[in-house]
């Protein structure tokens, strides 16, 4: 194959383009200037200037989660790179494929002495720092290796259990020239994810499910990653099994489907938590059984036989013991399971388990007639105002848990939230990333006031780059989730949770050139949302609510799924 003579910066952009990259979020600086110089003349890659590198990383993450394609972010060395860290850790915890590219001080200076390792200006050991929060990272050491390294990075980030990959790019390699050969060749002998399920395990699982009287499915984020929502639906309908999801699994199954029972866990739907405990067989797909999801492990479905499908063998048996492990891609495993199950006798729709589902639903999820100006009704109304295809992101805290409980996700990749790290400030830049990936869709960030302040500077990015999203600030004037814990578990002794009435979010929005509304009634809320989602400019809707509002139901920390308090 022919080689082309070019410098490292151009070799990088060419490699990214070959990977289909169209957008890059980032902030530049000295150690990455040659790459930005190459961007000047690059026709196909659009650079979106974030206002903080954390925002760039979250935007790349939101881009990836909304589209299923890897998101890319750039930062300079030292502080630029370390500012990415929260965003990378966030992507790692939620298994999101992002590629972070950091400039680095030259590995070899002009006088051919080493610079890396000598505490050069803006040198940070970003490889050392990000080793535990990346799926893979590496530092480039020559121009010739760039295509292969980039291909490898994308391959690792997007296959198996996805995750962030960081590439550190010393400045001298950016400017060096060499004959570069572009191939799609990838060679990593230490990495070979298991995709296809073992037929024997599928047979065992099918037999177990066929014998089940009260089967339940627990779908996690892995179902969304695997694009396996359709397969999940067919298996669920065939088995007539209620489908619960984890928080990260929201959207894997339409939450208005008669078999849907909502999310499980600390702030899960009581219907999901209850039926999970009553089930005799649990089919868990693409979930890592996080503590927030399972509650106290001693009381987590001790009776049920457990089938666990996960692409990451290390997840099997990590937190809970399973009876039938299946290491495979969720899509492949669910289709294989379906092929076997279809041969078995069909379940009758009027079986006792289905009756129990309806009875429990009537008892635990009674229809809500109430139209108070409170998060629950507002989020239920929001669902009606948004098209099915709309993408919702959330911040972290009460706003997030209210969204989990009351905003019904209907499709995969339409509910995007920081689950594993719980990063305040994720939702807004993630919304910008999602809108960049899906410009024709409505994108809304359901925010808390505290979280929004953490990355609010990206209003400038969204306005100037013309990436309009809507931010709904459930403004309780407090770090609400922590205030709730102080209220419930620390005798109402409030410490450091009050945010006061600043900033004025309407003026804040306006000062960035965005649109701001404040709403104090349901009709105003409806009107503001309708205006915002049609608007060509980013809109912030300030929704003042009581600081005393709790997220309930809740399982107190350390308790089991059977100890939920408060009504849905």
């Amino acid at each position, binding site marked *: 194959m022919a080689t082309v003579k070019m410098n490292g910066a151009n070799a990088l952009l060419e490699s990214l383009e070959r990977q289909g990259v169209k957008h890059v979020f980032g902030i530049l600086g000295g150690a990455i200037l040659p790459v930005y110089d190459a961007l000047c003349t690059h026709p196909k890659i659009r650079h979106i200037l974030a206002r903080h590198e954390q925002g760039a990383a979250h935007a790349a993450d939101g881009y990836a989660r909304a589209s299923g394609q890897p998101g890319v972010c750039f930062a300079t060395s030292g502080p630029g790179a370390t500012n990415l860290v929260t965003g990378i850790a966030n992507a790692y915890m939620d298994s999101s494929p992002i590629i972070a590219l950091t400039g680095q001080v030259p590995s070899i200076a002009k006088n051919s002495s080493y610079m890396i390792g000598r505490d050069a200006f803006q040198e940070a050991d970003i*490889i*050392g720092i990000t*080793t*535990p929060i990346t*799926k*893979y990272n*590496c530092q480039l050491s020559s121009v010739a290796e760039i295509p292969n390294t980039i291909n490898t990075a994308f391959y*690792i980030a997007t296959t198996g259990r996805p995750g962030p990959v960081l590439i550190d790019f010393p400045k001298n390699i950016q400017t060096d020239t060499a004959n570069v050969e572009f191939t799609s060749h990838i060679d*990593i*002998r*230490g*990495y070979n994810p298991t995709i296809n399920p073992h037929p024997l395990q599928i047979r065992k699982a099918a037999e177990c499910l066929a014998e089940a009287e009260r089967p339940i499915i627990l779908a996690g984020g892995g179902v969304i990653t695997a694009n396996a929502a359709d397969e999940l639906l067919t298996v669920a309908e065939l088995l007539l099994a209620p489908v619960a999801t984890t928080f990260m699994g929201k959207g894997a199954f339409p939450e208005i489907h008669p078999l849907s029972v909502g999310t499980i866990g600390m702030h899960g739907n009581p219907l999901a938590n209850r039926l999970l405990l009553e089930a005799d067989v649990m089919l868990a797909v693409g979930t890592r059984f996080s503590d927030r999801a399972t509650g106290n492990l001693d009381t987590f479905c001790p009776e049920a036989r457990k089938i666990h499908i996960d692409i*990451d*063998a*290390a997840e099997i*048996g*990590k937190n809970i013991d399973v009876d039938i492990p299946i290491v495979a891609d969720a899509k492949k495993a669910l289709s294989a399971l379906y092929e076997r199950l279809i041969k078995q006798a069909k379940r009758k729709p009027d079986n006792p388990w289905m009756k129990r589902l309806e009875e429990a639903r009537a008892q635990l999820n009674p229809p809500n007639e109430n139209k108070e100006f409170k998060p629950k009704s507002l989020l239920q109304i929001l669902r009606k105002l948004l098209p099915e295809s709309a993408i919702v992101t959330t911040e972290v805290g009460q706003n997030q848990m209210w969204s989990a409980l009351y905003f019904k996700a209907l499709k995969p990749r339409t509910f995007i939230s920081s689950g594993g790290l719980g990063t305040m400030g994720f939702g807004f830049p993630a919304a910008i990333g999602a809108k960049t990936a899906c410009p024709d869709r409505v994108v809304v960030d359901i925010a808390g006031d505290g979280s929004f302040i953490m990355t609010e500077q990206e209003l400038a990015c969204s306005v100037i780059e013309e990436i309009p999203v809507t931010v709904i600030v459930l403004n309780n004037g407090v770090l609400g989730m922590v205030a709730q814990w102080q209220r419930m578990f620390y005798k109402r002794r409030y410490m450091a949770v009050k945010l006061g009435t600043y900033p004025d979010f309407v003026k804040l929005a306006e000062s960035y050139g965005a649109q701001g509304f404040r709403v104090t009634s349901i009709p105003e809320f409806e009107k503001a949302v309708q205006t915002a989602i049609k608007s060509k400019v980013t809109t912030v809707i300030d929704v003042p609510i009581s600081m005393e509002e709790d997220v309930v139901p809740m399982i107190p920390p350390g308790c089991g799924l059977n100890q939920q308090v408060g009504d849905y």
Partner: protein
Amino acid sequence: MENQNNKKTTVIAALVENKPGVLHSVSNMFRRRGFNIESITVGQTEQKGVARMTITVSGDEKTLEQITKQMNKLIDVIKVNQLEPDSIVTRELALVKISVPDVKSRSDIINCVEVFRGRVVDVSPESLMVEITGTPDKVDAFLNLMRTYGIIELARTGLTALSRGIKSIRIDE
């Protein structure tokens, strides 16, 4: 090698990419997940670009399983095997500098070295340096004997191991 709390000591042999940073990512993973390394040795292998890590770890069955799985997840780790305790040869090498108070001690020490099939590798008027190779138990036993004379300095390599027979850990299988 089973003891109380169902803790077992196991030897893990891993083939890894022979490049910078790999030892860091492995040891970092152990630290982060709270796994305990008793000893670790690294060296090149007969296969090009491949290094072998021999790691002695202890933990219950579940922990050992997690260790293997988490190691396997590291991209630069090519292959991980838990060696069967009953069918491996383990060795450790120690260099130990022993103080020699008098002539009688000197000959006693040299006798011990012979019994343990060690070698005296350096001699000075007040000290002897001994090279001793064997299972960690044997090395421990020898060192315990030497404590009565006084150990001036000690360097142990940590355990390394291969399984018996024709079988081998290779990356191409």
